[in-house]
């Protein structure tokens, strides 16, 4: 099995996923939840089992909106069959009570309207969390880069291993954020603090996976000193392939169980994890080790020549 030989095909597959994601990010942006933008999220359940039409709820909010508390044009989404989630600008407790009372009077059908969830975040906090989250990711990347450079100090160019692992990690971050932007645009998903947790998990898993493959390269490059670097890398990937697939399988099993049987409140989280962890395994096999080869051969010198290099290995 020669994975390194087709490295540009695998890079191409990655780009096929990442580029649409980036376009979606530029066109629509990442739909941020109130955890990052500030505002209120009210989830109400209608005991009658018949939640009102979305337009009716929007009309109610527009009616109750004042210049002091502007809650006009909320984002209303159905949750399950009997609940609605309503996202608006910040509302105070008195206004919340009024809104729930009005929902019960007009749309309750004589039955109770229960608050399942009420979240309120001020705009300042949200921005701060978003900024600090980016800082946390950068810090994690730096710490991991340093750790890998240290752990691989026995091999030549230890720094390359850390950098390649970080590039693979960024690949997974871009896949996750891009997919979130696309799905978010069409299904109305919003990135909340659980999304952030999922993203950070993917980062951890991605590096975890990459290190296992790199560990094999580290070991083999000491064993086969005479052999061509690309061959060593390829051999290492093939040797760890069983492990990569099996680990991927077991993690996917638990995540699929969570997605299928876990509550609706974490489904978004779990789906993002599934995408990210799949991407993490992909990048640890098809991106990170080939990057080492590209770097070793300094192939970027040939990228813009008219004739492609005839021998790829």
């Amino acid at each position, binding site marked *: 099995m020669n994975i390194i030989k087709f490295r540009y095909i695998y890079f191409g597959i990655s780009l096929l996923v990442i580029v649409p994601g980036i376009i979606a990010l530029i066109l629509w942006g990442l739909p941020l939840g109130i955890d990052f933008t500030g505002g209120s999220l009210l989830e109400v359940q209608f005991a009658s089992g018949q939640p009102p039409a979305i337009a009716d709820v929007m009309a109610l909010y527009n009616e109750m909106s004042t210049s002091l508390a502007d809650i006009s044009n909320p984002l209303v989404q159905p949750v399950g069959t009997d609940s609605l989630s309503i996202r608006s600008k910040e509302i105070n407790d008195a206004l919340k009570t009024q809104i729930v009372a009005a929902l019960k009077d007009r749309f309750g059908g004589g039955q109770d309207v229960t608050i399942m969830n009420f979240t309120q975040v001020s705009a300042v906090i949200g921005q701060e969390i978003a900024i600090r989250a980016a800082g946390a990711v950068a810090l*994690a990347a730096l710490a991991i880069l340093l750790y890998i450079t240290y752990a691989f100090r026995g091999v030549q160019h230890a720094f390359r291993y850390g950098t390649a692992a970080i590039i693979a990690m960024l690949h997974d971050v871009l896949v996750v954020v891009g997919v979130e932007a696309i799905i978010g645009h069409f299904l109305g998903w919003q990135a909340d603090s659980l999304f952030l947790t999922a993203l950070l998990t993917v980062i951890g898993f991605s590096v975890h996976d990459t290190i*296992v493959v790199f560990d094999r390269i580290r070991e083999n490059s000491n064993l086969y000193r005479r052999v061509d670097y690309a061959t060593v890398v390829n051999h290492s990937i093939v*040797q760890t392939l069983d492990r990569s697939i099996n*680990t991927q399988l*077991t993690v996917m099993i638990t995540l699929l*169980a969570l997605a299928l049987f876990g509550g609706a409140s974490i489904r978004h989280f779990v789906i993002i*994890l599934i995408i990210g962890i799949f991407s993490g395994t992909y990048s640890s096999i098809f991106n990170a080790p080939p990057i080492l080869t590209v770097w070793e051969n300094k192939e970027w010198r040939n990228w813009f020549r008219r004739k492609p290099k005839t021998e790829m290995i």
Partner: protein
Amino acid sequence: MNRRQYKWLFLIIPLIALAIWVDLSKQITIPNPFNSQTSLINRNVQTQLGLDLRGGLQVLLEADLPANATVSSGDLSVTRQILESRANALGVSEVVMQVAPPRRIVAEFPGLQDPEQVIASLQQTGLLEFVDMGSTPVAAGTIIQTDYGTSTTSTITTDTPATTTEAPSITPTTDPSATPAPTETPAPTPTIYHTIMTGAALNSVNVQAGQLSGFVIAFTLKSDSATMFADFTGSHINQYLAIVLDKRVISVPSINDQITGGQGIIQGSFTQDSANTLAIQLRYGSLPVPIKVVESRSVGATLGAESVSRSVIAGIIGLLVIIIFMGLYYRLPGLIADVALVTFALICLMLYKLIPVVLTLSGIAGFILSIGMAVDANILIFERLKEELRAGRTLRQAIDLGWKRAWPSIRDSNSSTLITCIILFWFGSTFGASAVKGFALTLALGVGISLFTAIIVTRTFLHVVLDTIKSTEHPRWFGI
């Protein structure tokens, strides 16, 4: 060589027994053998569920000061204590309040369905003033200005306003001598009244049923204030005294006699609830730092219960499928890894109960991910084991080499996960983002425990089983 492995059994077996005992009990008690009345250990080890699982309210409070003002950690922790006593006095049970430096406090009220009253009561600064009204009373409910610092940031540390310096930007007094002796009657401007004493002078506060109807708040004064109050009431008979809370007049009794005993009653149109709330505010004083709510999350109890049962079911299904997969694919070592995996789950649960770790949805997700990483360590080892067997080594050699060769990758991959966990935990702590924090904690614990179970438990059991069956060459049992 194998004897060396056996010593681990003395750790593993008691640990499993202990884990099962803790996991199955709600309360662990070890009686004191020398004194039957006391017990050595008596701990509640019920699993603690987070608000998203049991329902409740989480509030993130922030010091309501300009962004450039620094909040001392002492002030913040005093604020937390006062808030906690207020919340506890309201009858809310199991309130958890944590300081999230530099300027925030996370408050959690499990099982609370109607949070408005709690938040309102927590936010009150509760500055009580006894104000000299002279001979013309104002109506209850009026907002007045007093010569006591209206800056809510000032700490009430003095019994009399005499030593309080005013914040000039907030209440400019026309009186140049801003420090009048408390017994003197200054010449107040029409809108600024003189404060005789503040809530800090109170010794005790009680709610009593009123003589005619409703409820009143009875108070006693500290002895030095009582003397001062006696002097004041003695010289102001037939004038009015206003009782003012947060600059709002509650009641304006007239002074009929000199009050010498240092006792008094605040009347107003109180219900039992509002009297209780006010008494709590008076009793626990004002906050050193004003606070505001910047984030609140409430989760209904039914939603939480549903999430718990569903996540547990999902976890069990996931675990079962992995156990079957490992047994089918890796045969004998796989089955032993399954035993190690169950040990892993038992120890995790025990630690969650003992530490205790408050389990949230994302915490459960962290646990499930750590199952994946625990399995990964065994997969790494078994793949190496198979390679060594294929290379023609004997089973014993292969087992030792398999563990030895897999170790660097297990160490480095788990270290990087731990690094991520530490950064996540720090990130979660600074924001009171308990979801992130819970995830990082369970994942880090899981990674740590999995290193023990996947490496030591699996290896020890494998040696024990191999010695028991007395067979050294059964490659099929190893999935080759």
